[in-house]
Structure formats: C-alpha cells, structure tokens
C-alpha cells in the first residue's frame, strides 16, 4: 500500500509551465484508495485544469500503474491523445509516475506526493523505486527518483564518484543515477529542465507519516472511514 496526497494545483500549474495540452493518468490501486488517483479524482483534476486554460486531451485510470506492462497496455488505446499532449500528468505514487516516465518517453509530471508508511512498494518487482519521501522530486529528474536511484540520495546533481558511469557504491549493479537522468532528458531535448531546476533541499519532516496515518496501515482501504481519517 502506498499512500498519496494530491499536490496543490498551483504547484502542478508551475510544473506545466508553458504547456497547453496534458493527458491525465490515475491508478485504481492505492491511489484510488488514497483518494488521489481514482476516476472521481481524475475528473476533478480535469475540471481544475480546464478551469485554468489547460486542454485535457484525454485521461485514463489504470490498475495498477506501478506495473510497467499494465501502463503500456493501458496507454495503447490512447496513443493518439497522448501524442497530442505536451506531457502526462500522473496522479499516483512515485512508482506509477516513474513507470509512466519509463514507458512513455516524454515529459511526465507528478501530481502527488507519496506519504511514508513503510508499506510495500508497488508491483514494480526487484527494485526499490519510491522512498515515500512526501516531497516528490520526479518533476525535476525526468521521472527517475534520485532518492532510490542515487546511493547518496543526491537531489541537485551527481557527485564526482561515478567511474565509467557506474556508481561508486555498487558499480556492478548500479549506474550513476544522474547519468541516467541526464541521458533521458538529453534524449527528450529537455536538458534545460536540469539547468533551470531550483536548488532542492530534502525535508525529512515530510518523511514522518502524518499523525492521523500512523499505525493505520489499512486506513486508505477502508472507504467508509476515509473521510474522517484524512479529513
């Protein structure tokens, strides 16, 4: 279970910048249970964006967005709409955002922060993909999480420790995360995103689960009590 919280619309509008057309993605798994990425929330997000002059060229709620294969098959019928879009706005946990960024090879924006509950990490097997940090950095990193992909959790660029593109900590299994980020953004012609990204500072206070969520791993599944739990 990954619990998410929608980012304020102003922050999302900042991510979109000059973009005019977006495709929205939600997830019928944890994000729907969290009240951030189900159909109702995606329609609400569409309304907020449309009211601010953004053209929502399409939307889709996929179960489960943390599974890359499901993202691929889920997006296939919407290929024309996605091609029309300047970017995809993903209203799920950090894993869903990264799965989309990996599959779609275009600008992908996070619409949520993932709240730390120490739960399971989605269906993307074999790798830790989301640190549940509560301040999603994926907007500035081409949809690759610097907290899980970089051994030093660096959020402003690489250290000087990579040798031949391999991480100094686990050279056999790990590439330098920032090389991978750089390559993806270069391929997409979006290196300016790295240059212009504001300095990032981790806020460890956001890694503490909110008081009302502590010890309530099942809270989000319990739709009946959800309103009173998250307020």
């Amino acid at each position, binding site marked *: 279970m990954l619990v998410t919280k929608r980012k304020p619309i102003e922050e999302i509008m900042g991510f979109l910048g000059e973009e005019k057309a977006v495709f929205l993605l939600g997830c019928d798994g944890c994000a729907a249970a969290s009240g951030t990425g189900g159909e109702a929330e995606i329609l609400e997000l569409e309304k907020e964006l449309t009211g601010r002059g953004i053209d929502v060229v399409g939307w889709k709620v996929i179960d489960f967005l943390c599974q890359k294969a499901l993202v691929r098959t889920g997006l296939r019928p919407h290929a024309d709409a996605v091609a029309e879009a300047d970017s995809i706005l993903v209203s799920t946990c950090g894993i869903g955002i990264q799965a989309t960024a990996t599959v779609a090879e275009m600008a992908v924006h996070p619409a949520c922060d993932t709240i730390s509950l120490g739960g399971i990490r989605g269906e993307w097997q074999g790798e830790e993909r989301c640190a549940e940090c509560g301040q999603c950095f994926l907007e500035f990193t081409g949809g690759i999480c610097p907290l899980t992909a970089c*051994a*030093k*959790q*660096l*959020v*402003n*660029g*690489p*250290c*000087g*420790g*990579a*040798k*031949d*593109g391999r991480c*100094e*900590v686990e050279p056999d299994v790990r590439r330098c995360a*920032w*090389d991978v*980020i*750089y390559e993806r953004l*270069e391929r997409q012609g979006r*290196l300016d995103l*790295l*240059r212009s990204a504001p*300095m*990032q*500072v*981790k806020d*460890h206070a956001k890694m503490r689960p909110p008081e009302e969520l502590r010890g309530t791993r099942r809270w989000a599944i319990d739709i009946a009590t959800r309103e009173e739990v998250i307020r």
Partner: protein
Amino acid sequence: MKLTELFGAGKFVVTSEVAPPKGTELTGMLEDAELLRSRVSAINITDQQSSVMRLGSLVAAQQLKSRGIEPVFQVTCRDRNRIALQSDLLSASAAGIENVLCLTGDHVCLGDSLGAKPVFDLDSVSLLAAARALNGGSDMEGNELEGRTDFCLGAVVTPGADPVGPQLIKMGKKVDAGAAFFQTQAIFDAEAFSRFMDQAKAFGVPVMAGIILLKSAGMARFMNQNIAGVHVPQVLIDEMATTAKEDRAAKSVEIAARIVHEVKDICQGVHIMPLGWEKRVPAVLDAAEL
C-alpha cells in the same frame, strides 16, 4: 586571508593539502604543512578523506591557522546533518578560518567504517547555500544569527567525468549557490582539461587545476581503474614505466611541472595533492616557475 582576494588581485594561486592523522598525533601533519607553507597561499585540510575516520578537519585547520598557515577547511556532507554542518561552520568562523571547501563526500562504503550511516542530509549545492546564508547573517531556515560568518566559499568539479555534461550543470548550480572558486579532480591530460575550461569559463569563477604527483606506473594504472574522473594517458604511464627506480621521483616532479606549465594559461591556479610526497612539492613549483 581569503583566496578570492588573491584571484581578485590577478594572482595565479597555488594551494596544496594535508591530511589529519588517524589518531591524536599531529606532528606528521604539521611537518607536512611546514614543508609547504612558504610555497603555497593556503593548505586544504581534508575531511575524513576516502571515508576513513580520522581527527577532524576543523581542529586541524585551527592548528594550521594558529601557526600562521592559511587553511582551506574542507567540509563534506557524509557525516553530519544540516544542524551539525552549520554549527561546525560557525565554530570554524570563531576559530578564524576564512576559506571553506564544500563537498558532497565519498560514500561510507569506500572507508573503514562500513556500517556507518551515510548522512547526505545536504549535498554540496545546499551546503554552499547554507554557508552563504551564514555569511548573510541567518541560518538556512532564515533564522537570524548573532554575529555572521565571512567565508570565502569553494567547491570541486571533475573535468574528466564521462559524460561531463552533468558535472557542468552541477558546477553552475554550485556557482549559483555561492561557490567563488573551484578546485578540480587531478588533471593529467591538458588538452582534455582545455576543452573542459572552454565550457567552464562561462561561469566566470576561478578554477584551480588539481595536480597529483605520479609515483609510479602502477599508481597511474591503479588510479585509471579505481579513481573516478581520473585518466592518466598511456604516454605518461609509459614514461614512468621506462624510468629507473632511482630516477622516478625526479621524473614525477618533471611530469607534474610539465602539466602545471600546460594548464597555467587556461586556469587561475593549481591545487597540488602530494599524497605523501609533500617534500617534492617545492621542486615541482620550482620547475614550473611558480
């Protein structure tokens, strides 16, 4: 004295470095510093380099300062969170330290305390920003200080990184965060360094080329295999390999001086990392006419 004053006066600045001991015995480090003092403008004090636990760079820097040797206090983000980092910077200011080099730091897995928690609460960019905030009279949260610091802030860059693009972008972020000079990872290929400087000079911040004394062909090969961003060209390895053992020190000095000569006109200073050969640094500077 701040290094920026020297750059401002158009000087070609020479620095070197010494390492605090693993233990309390400071004699060796102070002797190394004495060998260098008359030939360099300042001496870096490394901060638990290679993640090996040692005596701290703050007290070591203070020891140099009290002997009239200008220290460059190295601070890494590996071992301290933002509270301790800012606190140590305030302490350094109280100790009269004026030059600070802000680094991310090696990962703990390279050192001798493998189970230690790698902190990295801040990174080199946010550490520079925190230090600049202290210079401005507040901490990084914006809380007002009683008395401010007045540091000259430096940073590092790896010109030999492949790809170099991410390094250049981060270099820009360090400049934006307050870096007023750069020291580089070791340079052995002046042409490659020149290509790097073609791009880096746009930042308008002084760059000091890192110089390491090659002790042997084996050391060169080891660095090529194991040290990030360092590439010793084959011609230099061959040059060391074909030199008789008794002539190697002289050859090492000759090569280092040659590299200094080659980069002298394209950067604003050199930072010499003697790695135990402190006593040969004056010969390098003589041969390089510095």
